[in-house]
């Protein structure tokens, strides 16, 4: 083994001597070769530091690969390669040039393991190296890393980078990173005070974290300045926190609205206590899964469109199942709520177990398209894309449904049948079909809710179980038979829940909300927006 390693090293030197023009590269190769000889994380860390110390931009490739877990050692000759996994084999690339040098079976190479500490070291090292990168987002990432891990040694490269920087936004971030480093250096007090002011103006959690550390270690004027800056950041963050809770509440409200909106039709408009409503949501989520599965295997390029494709399909699947349930079970049970409850409950169990038998009991992976991943900042508030899109989607569905109910002939018939069945029948409306289609519409909407919910929850046979209680809660609270009530009910429950949560905790928060609803229903049994008129008494 030692012989082999020596051979490997010799090979490296041999290559180096063939390229006398690039002595620096040979040195780098010699350092990289040490990855193969060191054992344990500390040895690898030492090599990383040595590579970083060269300051050569070439080391970015092997270091980035190492952080990603893509750096391999070939067992035969202890050479180090960047590897790209493809099935059972790995294509090996030269660590410096990135040129392909061959393939290897997975069993012939060993991955160089990294842990979190090592990843952090690499990130810091890359931070300094990528200050001059062409892509501004890479420079921003570098500034961010350097801000979080201040080091007096960073000041010099940052000064150079600030001088060369043209993008004002990146420049400001560099200056903040420099300020962070100044605070841990032995620069004079005046510099440090300016740095505290600069960081205090940044005003976010990272700044707070940094200043808290400064406050603990500094003395005199710097400590006082840090204390003052912390106080001002805290007071502005408190405001943002309140805003954040409201936003989370709106977001939870949109989820509740989506889950409940189908029920607002089947239960709210038709009066069917539909316990299988959650399972319609689940069917929609499984449709999304199947669509994604087909896309993954056959049309990988379409992945970002998977949800758009899944929407109409989920609507159709859930609506047809709803239609079958209505024609097969529910139509015999109109006017008998207890039997309807039990029958639909049985249907829900059948559907759950059917899905469990077909897809298995385990969670299925539904991926987030790129436009639904990650977050962006509004001030100090991190807004996640998936939540934002779900809010937009929920409101759109609500708007469309409202239009259908209020502005189309079908909606008119639906309302007519609900208001007075016999009169509607006398006017020539085929009430059984209106019933069937209304139930199918409610189920279909539950299905498209499933598409959205698959993005934030588990896709498992139990998916619907989690939403059925909340859905009924929203519809009953908002007022049965009133779509606007469902909207207001969903958002008020969401916001109350999320505003309570930071103080009471999730468990107690939920209990408080339930108690409040019970009290409210005692006071107003018909919910927030009660229907008035003769129809109600019928």
């Amino acid at each position: 083994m030692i012989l082999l390693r020596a051979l490997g090293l010799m090979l490296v030197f041999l290559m180096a001597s063939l390229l006398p023009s690039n002595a620096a590269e040979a040195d780098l190769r010699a350092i990289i070769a040490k990855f193969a000889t060191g054992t344990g994380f500390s040895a690898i860390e030492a090599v990383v530091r040595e590579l970083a110390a060269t300051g050569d931009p070439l080391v970015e490739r092997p270091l980035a690969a190492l952080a990603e877990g893509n750096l391999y050692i070939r067992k035969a000759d202890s050479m180090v390669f960047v590897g790209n996994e493809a099935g059972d084999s790995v294509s090996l690339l030269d660590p410096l040039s990135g040129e392909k040098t061959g393939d290897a079976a997975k069993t012939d190479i060993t991955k160089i393991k990294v842990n979190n500490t090592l990843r952090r070291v690499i990130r810091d090292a890359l931070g300094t190296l990528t200050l001059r990168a062409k892509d501004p987002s890479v420079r921003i990432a570098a500034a961010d890393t350097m801000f979080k891990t201040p080091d007096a040694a960073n000041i010099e490269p940052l000064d150079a980078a600030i001088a060369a920087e043209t993008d004002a936004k990146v420049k400001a971030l560099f200056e903040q990173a420099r300020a962070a480093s100044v605070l841990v250096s032995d620069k004079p007090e005046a510099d440090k005070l300016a740095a505290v002011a600069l960081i205090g103006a940044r005003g976010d959690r990272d700044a707070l974290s940094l200043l808290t550390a400064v406050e603990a270690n500094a003395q005199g004027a710097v400590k006082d300045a840090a204390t003052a800056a912390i106080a001002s950041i805290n007071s502005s963050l408190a405001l943002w926190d309140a805003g954040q809770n409201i936003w989370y509440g709106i977001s939870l409200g949109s989820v509740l609205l989506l889950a409940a909106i189908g029920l607002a039709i089947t239960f709210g408009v038709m009066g069917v206590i539909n316990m299988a409503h959650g399972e319609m949501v689940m069917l929609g989520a499984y449709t999304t899964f199947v669509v994604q599965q087909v896309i993954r295997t056959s049309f990988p390029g379409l992945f970002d469109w998977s949800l758009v494709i899944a929407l109409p399909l989920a609507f159709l699947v859930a609506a047809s199942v709803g239609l079958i349930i209505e024609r097969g079970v529910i139509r015999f049970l109109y006017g008998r709520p207890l039997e309807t409850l039990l029958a639909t409950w049985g249907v829900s169990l059948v559907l759950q177990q059917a899905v469990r038998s077909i897809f298995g009991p385990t969670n299925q992976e539904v991926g987030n398209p790129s436009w639904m991943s990650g977050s962006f900042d509004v001030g100090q508030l991190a807004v996640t894309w998936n939540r934002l899109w779900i809010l937009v989607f929920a409101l759109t569905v609500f708007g469309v449904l409202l239009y259908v109910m209020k502005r189309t002939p079908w909606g008119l018939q639906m309302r007519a049948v609900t208001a007075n069945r016999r009169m509607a029948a006398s006017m020539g409306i085929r009430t059984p079909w209106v019933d069937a289609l209304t139930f199918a519409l409610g189920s279909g909407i539950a299905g498209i809710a499933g598409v959205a919910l698959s993005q934030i929850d588990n896709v498992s046979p139990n998916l619907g179980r989690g939403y059925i209680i909340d859905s009924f809660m929203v519809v009953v609270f908002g007022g049965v038979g009133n779509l606007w009530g469902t909207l207001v009910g969903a958002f008020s429950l969401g916001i109350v829940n999320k505003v309570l949560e930071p103080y009471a905790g999730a468990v107690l928060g939920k209990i408080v909300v339930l108690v409040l609803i019970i009290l409210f229903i005692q006071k107003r049994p018909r919910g927030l927006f009660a229907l008035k008129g003769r129809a109600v008494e019928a």
Partner: protein
Amino acid sequence: MRGNFSTITKMFSAGVVAAGLSMSSPAKAAEDTIKVGILHSLSGTMAISETTLKDAMLMLIEEQNAKGGLLGKKLEAVVVDPASNWPLFAEKARELISKDKVAAVFGCWTSVSRKSVLPVFSELDNILFYPVQYEGEESERNVFYTGAAPNQQAIPAVDYLMSEDGGSVKRWVLEGTDYVYPRTTNKILEAYLKAKGVAAEDIMVNYTPFGFSDWQTEVSAIKKFGSAGKKTAVVSTVNGDANVPFYKELGNQGIKAEDIPVMAFSVGEEELAGLDTAPLVGHLAAWNYFESVDTPENKKFIADWHKFIKNDKRTTNDPMEAHYIGFNMWVKAVEKAGTTDPDKVIDAMVGVSVPNLTGGYSTMMPNHHITKPVLIGEIQADGQFETVSQTPGLVMGDEWSDYLPDSKDLISDWRAPLSCGNFNVATGKCGGKGTN
């Protein structure tokens, strides 16, 4: 409202399932077989985890039969479905023991289901193998605990995070689902951390309900707690389905493992299968087994499993290994005792040693817990764990935690002459009480 619905659920699912199963359970009952009971939920909320264990048991029994059975007889699996319904667990256990006359039962997942069958096993004197990591504070004569006790999972995990390799963590978030396992584990961890000199304001404990799916507030609270200038980590005892939305929210809010690592005790390969793991690389889990462990025993086990389940993508996990160990221990003890009589097998079990899948031997200790290595793994982009740390030797399961005032004086030794699961060394009496 909620209570009513769930009662109806239970009655319904119980009825439906019981009717379905009593027809399907094998009724041939030949005289020359040894029956083995499998008590795992195949429907309801826990089916997601427990169905796999039922399949693993069927595979182990099939393999044993292929090797010629046990004591010259074939083994016969009797599968029942307690449908994630805790009282039904006790009923089904009684049915297995009294009606089907099984020689031993392998089953349960949640602590509450285990607690509900305990009286049945001691009354009818049979054996239960319990394969899941749990909160400890228990040692029963009729139960063999093949999953991890807190000191075989939680304590080493925290030790790792405190070490330099783990990032020298100074501030701790203990995030859990609101039930007995997280509550007791967190009590032990809190006491342990304080004993290690962590200040009370550097520990944040938070609980969420079962199946919780809106983690925005919790994740931002973690972010906030982590911005106090000290290295922060999350120790998660979040259970089951709630994990997927939790990790999705972590990924979306940009909490990276390098900054705030999450150490999970209930997240295994199976949970990750429903998740895009790319944003989670570097988050941690502590178990006694990972599918990625590179040993010949494990390779064979995985190959057998894929063949048995006819699906190359199905993962293996820690509780499966626990059943593998438990089943082999039981086989060995039965061979040693020369009979399947539970009393004799219980006595023969202590000291039995069988290979585990991580390249060593696990031994049944007198407290009915086993010795295991503890592995810390990091989540990889392919949904597997990569071991980053491993205890140098085997860790013996400690049923009564040394860090809880109620249980620190208790020990358990089921060998004669002591034969006591809760012996108080301070008072010299059998019959101490733990924390729950």
